[in-house]
């Protein structure tokens, strides 16, 4: 018979995503959530105070001379040593952070509680891609590639058209694709490699520099433009530098006005919790949702009992490949042991 607080503790095992607002360090966010979860555990009603038996000796009134009978009475006294105010239970909740976000950027931040932190390391190693939305401004160059830095130069940008910008982006994507092929260490003359490449499931084998697997122009209204990037092994500063290089390629300059992560592996921005919802019940809800979605995907992937041949697996994966492009990785991560229970 577990205490209510222990039951709450068990419900908190899992991964969930939050939306980190810009301007705060990720550590502050993690600490806030840890505090809120602990508050939630403490809010569970405390157990009834334990009783202990204390024997009190009473001497009965001596009426006759010889009758010095001692009677002992047993009294049940509350044991104050385990009173909630007397004892601080040092519960340690381990809240781990997935891919970090720096102070300037905002977006989906994956956190794990308890045993699921092991799943986080698996997430790292599985080369899941992340989606970013980068907002840029033409005509400025600063020292740290973002609009909060010291201005170094200003340039004109009237000559830039959408067509030119898209050409530059295509060139960048091409070079990234080549890098991906080199780092994935597959022999490009094989049929298997070709099929993987066609489906967009090639991934680097081992360590690699930041690679963009997808680059797209969302919105262009000079001087402002917005890019959508799908990448691996990146840092937010690298992305700001990409924008700067885009500007340089166009014989102008550009700075990054905002970096927003919209997807981290299977966690999208849709289910990310905003800061009003960083409380224990909402987190429990998010974890429950994640667990149920995992069960559903597990069931879907292990459904074909007989034909577990590669062809049918690829077929199923291809359905989801359009969305995320890394469902293969996802599958292996989701069914790994660390996610168990």
């Amino acid at each position: 018979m577990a205490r209510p607080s222990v039951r709450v503790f068990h419900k908190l095992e899992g991964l969930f995503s939050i939306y980190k607002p810009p301007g705060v360090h990720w550590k502050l966010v993690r600490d806030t959530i840890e505090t809120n979860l602990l508050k939630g555990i403490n809010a569970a009603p405390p157990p009834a105070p334990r009783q202990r038996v204390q024997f009190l000796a009473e001497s009965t009134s001596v009426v006759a001379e010889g009758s010095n009978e001692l009677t002992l009475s047993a009294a049940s006294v509350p044991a104050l040593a385990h009173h909630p105010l007397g004892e601080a239970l040092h519960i340690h909740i381990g809240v781990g952070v997935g891919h970090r976000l720096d102070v300037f950027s905002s977006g989906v931040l994956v956190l794990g509680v308890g045993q699921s932190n092991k799943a986080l390391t698996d997430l790292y190693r599985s080369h899941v891609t992340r989606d970013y939305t980068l907002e840029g401004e033409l005509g400025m160059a600063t020292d740290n590639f973002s609009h909060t830095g010291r201005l170094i130069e200003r340039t004109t940008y009237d000559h830039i058209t959408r067509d030119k910008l898209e050409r530059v982006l295509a060139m960048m994507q091409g070079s990234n694709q080549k890098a991906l092929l080199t780092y994935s260490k597959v022999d490009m003359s094989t049929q298997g490699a070709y099929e993987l490449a066609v489906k967009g499931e090639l991934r680097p084998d081992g360590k690699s520099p930041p690679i963009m697997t997808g680059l797209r122009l969302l919105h262009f209204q000079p001087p402002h433009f917005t890019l959508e990037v799908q990448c691996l092994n990146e840092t937010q500063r690298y992305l700001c530098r990409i924008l700067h290089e885009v500007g340089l390629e166009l014989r102008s300059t550009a700075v990054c006005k905002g970096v927003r992560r919209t997807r981290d592996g299977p966690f999208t921005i849709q289910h990310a919790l905003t800061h009003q919802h960083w409380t224990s019940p909402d987190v429990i809800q998010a974890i429950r949702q994640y667990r149920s979605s995992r069960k559903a995907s597990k069931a879907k992937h292990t459904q074909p009992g007989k034909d577990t041949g590669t062809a049918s697996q690829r077929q199923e994966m291809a359905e989801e490949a359009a969305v995320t492009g890394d469902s293969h990785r996802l599958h292996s991560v989701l069914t790994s042991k660390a996610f168990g229970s």
Partner: protein
Amino acid sequence: MALTCIQHCQRCTSLLRSRSVGITTLQYSTDAQHWPAALWNSFIVPVLPSLLQRSPNPSQTRQRWNLGVRSYCESHAKVQPSQTKHRNTDELPGTDMVSYQNPVSHQLIDGGMLLKEWQTAFDLDDAPGHSALEEISHEEAVRMDIPAALPPVSISLKDYVNESETLGKLVQLGVQLWKLEQRPNVGSMLLRLDFQTDVTPRLVFLKQLGVEDSRLGYLISHNPFILTESLENLQARVAYLRSKKFSAESVASMVSRAPYLLNFSVKRMDNRLGFYQQQLGLSAQKTRDVVARLPRLLCGSLETVKENLKICKLEMGFRENELQHIVTVIPKVLTANKRKLTQIFDYIHNTMNIPHDLIVKFPQVLNAKYLRIKERHLFLQYLDKAQYDPAKPNYICLDKLVSLPDEAFCTEVASATLKDFELFQKTIVAQPRMTSFSERHFTHNSTQTFFRQNNMASRAPATTGRLLVSFRKWYYNAAGFNKIGLMRDDTIHEDSDVKEALRRLPEKVYNDRMFRLKRALDLSMKQAVLPKEQRTQYEEDVHYLEPYLKEVIRERKEVEEWSKK
């Protein structure tokens, strides 16, 4: 009863060990040996001898205690007779019983009262000696209390709370012992208190003052030292507050909200009240209101308040009467975090373009969270509803912007759903940082420029500013070039950058420089210095070349950057 017995035994063992003259192999010490050495030095809650200063000593308990101690002492005396022989014959003479009395009597430095008690309690001639193997009657066996195995030192009050009356009653009051035991020495202080004589009179005093029962726990958790403050002092301070015409209810609420209030002397409170009245220029009644609403103003340091006032006046540019109004509505501005205050003000004034008089009308905005204001403003901007000027239509009241909860804000002010607001929150990106000090314009209705005051007020508090300036002056005079009438920029080494900067100087400045250099060369030839009145003073020294030099260097760097590409 059981308590006193236990405590006697504990006292015996703790005393014995405190001298550490080799009686470390007592049975009790094995418990202590489990604790690592480090614990002994920190977080120790020793059960000190003064535990029993005022407890009544019925003869029955004394006898029982005698029985207990003697049997105890006997067993140990028999185990280590050799160790009772020491150089310090005062402490441990040969015989069994006496050996354990004298160390006690000579070690009782801290409790003079204790000495007598111990001696009176320990009447050797009273009862005959007992051997541990002697058979005792059933009643006696039942009567004999087994002392609880309380550790003599502990890092937690948990071990003593079942036996100590004070701690038990405090827990029932609602005091958070787990917090208090983390503070150094507080745990042992609480254990030393006697509930009847120490704690009860103060609790009664607080109750009479009007503090509610439910607040007593909070008060003691935050300020356990109220239980050691003398009653006369407490009464004097309350009398002082009443004499300043604080009503009884307001005194009670002040004490319950600022737990440390009554630990401060009358002089200090008077000093602070005077400071607030004088600095803010408020009437007596208004000062009373402000202090009654935020009683911690009387507790904390005045330096932070002074700095906050300076920021409000100089950086933000509020006038005296505006500041008075703000402080009467939101006294928290005086103790707010400076960085956060300036951040919020900067956002409201420079980004949302809200003028000073509107901020003064709604000072609550200065108390709100920065993130909240930012998100709501951006949301309204996105919906094209961010209009805060009361003169124009569709005006949004600042009070509603800040104080309504999210649900009400969305429906009333923004006419959108909560879901839309959350979706919008997920699209917010970083905003540009605060503009630098020289570019900021906290201008007010009058055309004052606050640049110089900004720099002064922002960089350092007044005291170290003066120190730095005096050091600089001394250094300037020690450098010596002012004695021959030169300025700092006259002495700069001429490399190519400086040559170019000199070429750009205006004619008059250049001619003045030439004159000074000629004069200085002349003086050095004659080995003379200027008289004191004609020497360049620290205040007169103008760094005329600096802006030109900076420009030249920046240009050169730019050229280098370009040529690299």
